[in-house]
């Protein structure tokens, strides 16, 4: 379908402020009487606070007050606490001090004496599962997340037997009793029928989110309302969680989150440190700013879950996967965590379409930062684990590496996971085919393995997947008497600009000139509808639907008003050039400005004085705020959606690896995506390339490791955690999209933010392994030391399932 706005580049309205520096992030706000808070965080990975002596600190000039765990709502284990007397990781906040300046606050903190009792701690899940092994929490070591259910998470003690450990040969993952499992198909027959069965144990490293904007927050109370300025990927979706964390109803909260300097999943929903200023401000009756430093961001800013795992995969002669047996031990950090196991296993079931599959898994607590979703949570760990195995199978079965991916790739009738859930559309095959052509795969693989002194050329391909869309949220638009279309969006602004590209759907439906549209967002006082946040690659799918239904509702009302004023039925009218006109006599028309004025006069549903019953209370609040200001379009998204919305990325890479130094140069990268209709080409290009860069880090440079002796993180700065630098990635990268509309989205859109990272990560891992003539490390990141050892035919320094190796 040809669109006027969709698929075209445009300048999102927040770019100017970002470029000029006018953009205000949470820590840029200043209010009268504001004081600064600093945190005293745990120096130990697990401890009990026996006593706190803050007398000297509180006596200091300029110190205003102290906030301890006794002043904030408690959280049931294993939920992350706001402040705690039983810290469960190094850097866990114990108390906060407020002072006239940050330096004074820190000086005061240095004077506080805490008597700690060190408790058993653990940074390696397998060690915790061993009989008698340490538990990360006093209540146990195994978490049941109850994700998405109204029941709170639980933590229990779970140990495997010594026999479980003794039964496996060296280097293989023991497979003791799992806490989650599912299965479909006939696993054994699949393996029996297989021409090749691969069985490997593996390690996937944890990663920090490295959000450029640390999670600072400011709060104050005014006229009974608590104002929170925070760094978040969500806006309206945040209100209920904030309400829970502060302990007041959502309508008593003003939440400002206009800009967010990256979150990558770690700022999906309000997090405990965000509400420390709110509680502190209430206690000392002063506005409180809590700036989080870069190092603190590493301590408490969450991380991706790592895995120790084991898999057995059967392949037919032609490369088709028959059965997958998967065991995952998820390093779940110190709190509730995130169900990466689901993402990993469901991802494998879709990307390789095995006829039979079994998952067994367990979430194990460690005394490391709380885990949260990170870009492709589970799916991208799956990609870096399984894609090299596809290469290995291709090699052993003498099949082209592109072909083995093609034969396994899902189509629109694929089913996902144990629930055998359908998908809305799936075009990874087209992505692979398009990429192969654009990358000139057939010619390039001829260079594969070419040697130039100590350098080896290596070409590789990989696929990655992530779900990309939800439904059931609300849309809200108003045409005001000045003729403008006001799109109210409560989605949040992670920095991807998709809040804007999805708002353009309302303009497209109403045939608006984009210049005459205004987006309202970033502040709960701006009458925003209830929308999900910017996570899970969902915005493009979810928000095009909400804006579509709201704009459609507006269009219906416009035509009704036209019929009312100019005669006939609504069906007799059409819209164009910001007018509604009679189809039979286009000279009979009303401008949108006139219609808006009429809507105000008519009231009722037309001006939003009445609204649908089924919209969320937050949308009702937003609607009440704009009621009577123009013609209102408001609706809940009840459009058809059955099944999972999948997005795919095929990554093609060409590297030259130096076997003597373990270094490589990425000569070329191309990412091709299946994201449905392309909404905003420039923004899509930056997602594909930026995602690939993040993926290269996951594959080969990033570190997030904990000292087994002390529980200390070894990486608390960007230079230690090592996301890729400009000089580690190619200066130009290619991108393309399949551009096949998804049938269950009104404009055909799907999201794509997450698989683009997996495509980059997995393709680089495959290329490195391929350059080493098929040396599959079965772990990430693959750093130069590992490559040098492998190329020299020397053993690696780490043990096969060891985590926190360097």
């Amino acid at each position, binding site marked *: 379908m040809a669109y006027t706005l969709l698929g075209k580049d445009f300048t999102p309205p927040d770019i100017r402020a970002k470029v000029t520096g006018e953009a205000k992030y949470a820590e840029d706000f200043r209010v009268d009487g504001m004081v600064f808070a600093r945190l005293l965080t745990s120096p130990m990975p697990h401890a009990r606070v026996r006593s706190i002596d803050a007398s000297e600190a509180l006596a200091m000039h300029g110190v205003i007050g102290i906030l301890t765990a006794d002043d904030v709502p408690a959280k049931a284990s294993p939920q992350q606490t706001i402040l705690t007397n039983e810290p469960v990781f190094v850097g866990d906040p114990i108390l906060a001090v407020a002072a006239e300046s940050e*330096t004074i606050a820190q000086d005061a903190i*240095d004077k506080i004496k805490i008597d700690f009792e060190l408790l058993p701690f653990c940074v390696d899940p397998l060690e915790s599962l061993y009989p008698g092994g340490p538990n990360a929490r006093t209540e146990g070591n195994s978490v049941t997340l109850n994700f998405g259910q109204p029941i709170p998470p639980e933590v229990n003690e779970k140990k495997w037997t010594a026999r479980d450990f003794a039964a496996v040969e060296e280097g293989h993952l023991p497979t003791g009793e799992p806490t989650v499992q599912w299965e479909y198909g006939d696993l054994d027959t699949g393996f029996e029928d297989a021409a090749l069965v691969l069985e490997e144990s593996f390690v996937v490293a944890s990663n920090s989110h490295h959000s450029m904007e640390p999670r600072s927050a400011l709060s104050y109370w005014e006229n009974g309302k608590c104002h929170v300025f925070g760094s978040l990927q969500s806006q309206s979706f945040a209100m209920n969680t904030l309400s829970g964390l502060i302990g007041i109803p959502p309508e008593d909260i003003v939440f400002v989150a206009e800009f967010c300097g990256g979150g990558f999943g770690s700022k999906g929903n309000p997090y405990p440190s965000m509400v420390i200023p709110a509680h502190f401000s209430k206690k000392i009756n002063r506005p409180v700013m809590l700036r989080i*430093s870069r190092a603190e961001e590493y301590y408490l800013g969450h991380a991706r879950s790592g895995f120790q795992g084991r898999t057995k995969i059967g392949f037919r002669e032609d490369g088709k996967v028959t059965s997958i047996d998967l065991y995952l031990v998820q390093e779940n950090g110190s709190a509730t965590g995130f169900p990466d196991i689901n993402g990993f296993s469901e991802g494998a079931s879709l990307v390789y379409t095995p006829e039979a599959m079994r998952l067994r898994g367990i979430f194990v607590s460690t005394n490391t930062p709380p885990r949260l979703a990170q870009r492709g949570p589970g799916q991208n760990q799956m990609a870096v684990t399984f894609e090299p195995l596809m290469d290995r199978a291709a090699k052993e079965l003498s099949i082209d590496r592109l072909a083995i991916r093609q034969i396994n790739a899902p189509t629109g009738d694929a089913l996902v996971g144990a629930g055998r859930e359908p998908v809305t559309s799936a075009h990874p095959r087209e992505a692979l085919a398009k990429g192969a052509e654009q990358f000139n795969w057939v010619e390039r693989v001829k260079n594969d393995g070419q040697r130039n002194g100590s350098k080896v050329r290596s070409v590789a391909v990989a696929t990655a997947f992530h779900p990309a869309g939800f439904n059931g949220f609300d849309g809200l638009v108003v045409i005001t008497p000045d003729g403008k279309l006001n799109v109210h969006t409560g989605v949040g602004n992670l920095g991807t600009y998709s809040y804007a590209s999805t708002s353009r759907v309302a303009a497209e439906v109403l045939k608006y000139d984009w210049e005459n549209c205004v987006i309202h967002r970033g502040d709960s006082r701006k009458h925003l509808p209830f929308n999900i946040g910017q996570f899970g690659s969902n915005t493009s799918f979810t928000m095009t639907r909400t804006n579509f239904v709201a704009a459609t509702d507006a269009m219906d009302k416009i035509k009704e008003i036209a019929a009312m004023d100019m005669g006939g039925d609504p069906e007799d009218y059409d819209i164009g050039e910001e007018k509604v006109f009679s189809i039979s006599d286009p000279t009979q028309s009303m401008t949108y400005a006139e219609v808006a004025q009429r809507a105000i006069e008519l009231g009722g549903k037309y001006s939003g004085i009445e609204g649908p019953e089924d919209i969320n209370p937050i949308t009702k609040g937003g609607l009440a705020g704009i009621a009577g200001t123009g013609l209102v379009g408001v609706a809940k998204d009840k459009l058809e959606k059955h099944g999972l919305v999948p997005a795919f990325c095929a990554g093609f890479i060409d590297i030259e690896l130096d076997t003597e*130094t373990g*270094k490589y140069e990425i000569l070329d990268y191309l990412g091709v995506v299946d994201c449905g209709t392309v909404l905003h080409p420039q923004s899509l290009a930056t997602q594909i390339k930026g995602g690939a860069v993040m993926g290269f880090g996951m594959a080969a*440079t990033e570190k997030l490791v904990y*000292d087994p002796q002390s529980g200390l993180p070894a990486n608390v700065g960007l*230079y*230690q955690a090592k996301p890729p*630098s400009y000089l580690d990635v190619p200066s130009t990268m290619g991108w393309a999209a399949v551009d096949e509309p998804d049938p269950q989205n009104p404009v055909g859109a799907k999201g794509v933010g997450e698989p683009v990272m997996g495509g980059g990560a997995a393709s680089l891992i495959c290329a490195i392994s391929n350059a080493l003539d098929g040396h599959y490390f079965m772990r990430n990141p693959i750093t130069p030391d590992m490559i040098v050892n492998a190329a020299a035919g020397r053993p690696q320094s780490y043990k096969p399932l060891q985590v926190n190796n360097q």
Partner: protein
Amino acid sequence: MSRDMMPHFELIQPSDMDNAFEVLERYGEGAWKLAGGQDSYDWFKDRVKRPQAVVDLNGIEELKGIRETPEGVEIGALTTLAEIAESDLITGSFSLLAQAASRVASPQIRNVGTIGGNVCQDARCWYYRAGMDCYRAGGNTCYADTPEGMNREHCIYGADRCVAVSPSDTAPVLVALDASMVIRNSARERIVAAQDFFIGPDVNIERMTVLEPGEILTAIRIPSTWAGSTFYFEKVADRNVWDFPLVNIAAAIKMSGNTIEDIRIACAGVECVPRRLTVVEDVVRGSSRDEETADLAASSAARGAIPLNFNHFKIPLLENLVRRAIRDS
């Protein structure tokens, strides 16, 4: 745990050497000499090192600049790494140093970081930097040299309670170029060969150089002996910028036809001091430059290395870098 907040400190900004010495004497061990601050600020911000007074040397003009002398070149200690990387004098005669300087850290750090600061920088062992009370910090244990210690970046030579390495990219170059360090205090000037400037834990576990509290490194002199020789510098780090070397190598070679007439070769990242590879020098001196010599050099490069649990790779890496220095220079 994390402090990450700059504390107040007394900042003294002398404008000449006499003034600087006077302040250094006044504060003794409590004084901290500040050049570009790229090593120092971390310590201060983490509140791990808390000097009484910070003596900023940036106002002392005579400590800056690159000068040609009858014997070679003299580089003021306060000259930035960026200036060195771009200097015609250095790129012309001692491109080895320009190369190394241009691979230090990141452009931003090189714009303020000085050569003096770079050779005087402290160990980068992360336990030590995290404020742990290890040997180097005056305590009585080493966290890195244990069965579980994270020691991928640590030494394979010269362990003596401490297993930290020299992290500098320019230090091995200065050793290879046979540079000398000009050191002054209020009373005297002394000249120390680059090779003797750096000290291991066996000499003093809390310091990396011979500098005494009241002393300032004023300049580095590079003799013309190795000017315009065949040079080789390579640094291997996890990332291509903004990253310390895992191992680096610096070689100055005098060729006569295809024969290696003389050579000085040194590396960092393997010992607490930049390590001069005298065995390699002896092996290749007088040999023709070919694959066989390169292989011989490589096989002798890591003799006697004792790796820790996570740094075995430094042996093949050092061997490979030596091979390349001979083969590809």
